[in-house]
C-alpha cells in the first residue's frame, strides 16, 4: 500500500489513483442510489420515514401492489410502443440520411452538421416547440396535414388518448435523428472503398452491394446503435413533461415518467422505486448487448 502511494506520480499508483477517484465518485453518486432504489422497493416508505434508512421490510408487497393496479400494464405497454416506434423511426430516417450524405457530394459535410442541432437542444425546449406544432386547433402540423389532404379534420394530438403517445413519439424521433445519423455515418465510412469496387467487378448492382456488403459489415454499428437507442429512449423524460405530462388519463404515460410522478407528485416513493427496479433490469440487458457489440477495439 505504501509503495502504491509512493508511486502516485510515477507507476502503478498513478493509474490507480486516476481511475479510483472518479470511480469512487460514480459509485457514491450512481451505484449507491441504485442499491438504495432496490432496497427501497422492498420497504414501506412514507413521508415521515423518508429521512431514515431502516424502514419496515415488506418483501414483495410493493411489487404485488404495483401489478394489481389497473394502469400498470397499459403503461408498460405504452413504454414498449414508445421504445419500438421511436427506435424504428429514428433508425430508418437516420440511416437514410447517413447513406444520402455518405455519397459525398460537395457541401455534404457542412450540411450534415446542420442535422446535429437536435442533439444539443434542451429536451424541454424541443418538447415546448413540438407541443405548439402539435396543437389541435392552431398547430402548424395539422394545417399541413389538412392542406396536403392527408387528414380531413384536426387531430388533437395532445388531448386525444388515441394520439397522445404518438405526439411524443414524433417529437422523440425528431430528437433522435442526429445521433443515429452520426453513428451510422461512422460505421459506413469504416467500410473500405475497394470492397465495393471488387463487388462491382464481381457483378453486383447497387442494391446487391447494399445487402451483401454494407449491411453485414455494419452489423456491430447497428447492434450498438439499437442498444444505445433502447437505453436513451428509456431515459426520455423531458418530452413527456413538456408535451403531455403523461395524459390524458395515462394514455401517453410511460414507465420512466410514471416512476417520477409517483415519487414526486404522489409521494409514493416505494412504488416509484419499484418501477425503477423493473426498468433497470431492461436497461441492464440493453447495455450488455451494447458492450458485446463494441468489444473489438485496440489502442492505436
Amino acid at each position, binding site marked *: 500500500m505504501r509503495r502504491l502511494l509512493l508511486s502516485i506520480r510515477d507507476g502503478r499508483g498513478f493509474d490507480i489513483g486516476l481511475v479510483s477517484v472518479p470511480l469512487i465518485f460514480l459509485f457514491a453518486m450512481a451505484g449507491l442510489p441504485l442499491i438504495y432504489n432496490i432496497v427501497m422497493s422492498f420497504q414501506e416508505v412514507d413521508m415521515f420515514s423518508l*429521512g431514515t434508512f431502516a424502514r419496515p421490510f415488506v418483501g414483495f408487497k410493493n411489487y404485488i401492489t404495483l401489478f394489481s393496479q389497473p394502469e400498470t400494464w397499459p403503461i408498460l405497454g405504452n413504454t414498449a410502443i414508445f421504445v419500438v416506434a421511436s427506435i424504428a423511426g429514428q433508425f430508418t430516417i437516420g440511416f437514410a440520411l447517413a447513406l444520402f450524405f455518405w455519397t459525398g*457530394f460537395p457541401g455534404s459535410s457542412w450540411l450534415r452538421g446542420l442535422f446535429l442541432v437536435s442533439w444539443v437542444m434542451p429536451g424541454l425546449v424541443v418538447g415546448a416547440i413540438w407541443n405548439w406544432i402539435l396543437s389541435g386547433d392552431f398547430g402548424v402540423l395539422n394545417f399541413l396535414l389538412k392542406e396536403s389532404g392527408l387528414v380531413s379534420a384536426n387531430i388533437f394530438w395532445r388531448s386525444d388518448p388515441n394520439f397522445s403517445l404518438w405526439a411524443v413519439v414524433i417529437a422523440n424521433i425528431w430528437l433522435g435523428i442526429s445521433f443515429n445519423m452520426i453513428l451510422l455515418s461512422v460505421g459506413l465510412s469504416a467500410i473500405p472503398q475497394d470492397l465495393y469496387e471488387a463487388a462491382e467487378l464481381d457483378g453486383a448492382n447497387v442494391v446487391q452491394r447494399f445487402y451483401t456488403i454494407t449491411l453485414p459489415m455494419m452489423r456491430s454499428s447497428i447492434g450498438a446503435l439499437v442498444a444505445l437507442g433502447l437505453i436513451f429512449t*428509456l431515459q426520455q*423524460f423531458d418530452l413527456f413533461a413538456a408535451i403531455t405530462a403523461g395524459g390524458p388519463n395515462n394514455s401517453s404515460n410511460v414507465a420512466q415518467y410514471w416512476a417520477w410522478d409517483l415519487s414526486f407528485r404522489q409521494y409514493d416513493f416505494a412504488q416509484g422505486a419499484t418501477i425503477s427496479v423493473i426498468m433497470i433490469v431492461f436497461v441492464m440487458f440493453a447495455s450488455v448487448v451494447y458492450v458485446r457489440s463494441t468489444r473489438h477495439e485496440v489502442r492505436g
Partner: protein
Amino acid sequence: MSIALRDKLMLMVAVLLAAVYLFPLYWMYVTALKTGSAMFASPPSFWPSDPQWSIYGSVWQSRNVGRYLWNSFVIASGAVSLIVILGTGCAYVLARYRNAWVDVGLFLILMLQVLPASLMITPIFVGFSQLGLLDYPRVAVILAIAAKSMPFFVVLVRAAFMSVPMELEEAALVDGNSRFGAFFHIVLPLARNGILVSAILIFMQAFGEFVYSKSMIQAIEYQPASVGLNSFMGPNTNEWNNIMAYAAMYVTPILAIFVLLQRRIVSGLTSGALK
C-alpha cells in the same frame, strides 16, 4: 447524368431535407415574433406580417430570463468542470491498458450511464436531503449531473486518448519524464481536441438538464432556465408567443456556440469518438 449535375441535384435535395428538419426551429423563432392574433390565425402565416421584436425585451423582464440563464450557466459550468477534472484521467487510464480490470471498469462505467435520471432522482433526493445538501440546491444538481454525464464523457475522451500513439508516451518516458509528466505534457495536449469537443457536448447537455433541477431546486431564484420554461407552460397555456420567445432566448446561446464550432464537433465525433 454528368457528375456535376448529379452533385447539384443532391445539394438541392440536401438543402430541402435540412429545411424540413430545421422547420421546428424556424417555427419557434417565427412564433415568438407573432402578435397574439396572428398566432392563432388559421391558416397560420409562415412569416409574421407584424413582427413584434419588443417581445424579447418584455419576456426577458417579466420572466426574469437573465436570472434563469445565469443559473443554467452556473450549473452547467460547475458540472463540466467537475467532469473534466475527474473524467479525463480516468479515460486516459482506460485507454492505455486493455486487460480484465479495464474491461470490468468499462462495463461498470457503462452500466452507470444507462440509468435514467427520473429513476435515480428518488434515492438521490432522499440521500441528499439526509446529508443536508439540499440547502445548497445548485451544488446538489451539479453533483448529480456530474455523476450522470461522466460516463458519457469518459467513453468519448477515452476514444480521443486511444488515437494518441503509445510510442509518443514511451518516448517521453525514456526521455526522463515521470508518468505524470508524460501524461500532462505529452498525451494530454494531443488529446486536447477530443476533450474539448466532449466537454462542449456535455456542457450543452447540462445546460438543458431538467429532471434533477426540477426535483431538487425549490427556490425560484436558483432555478435554471429549463425549470423556468416548464413553470411557464401550464396545462392550458396559450401565450405561445411568449413561451417561444423564452425558448428562443434559452436556446440561442447554445445554437450560436454550435454553429461556430460545428465543424470541430462533427469531425471530433466522426474521427473516432463514436466507435
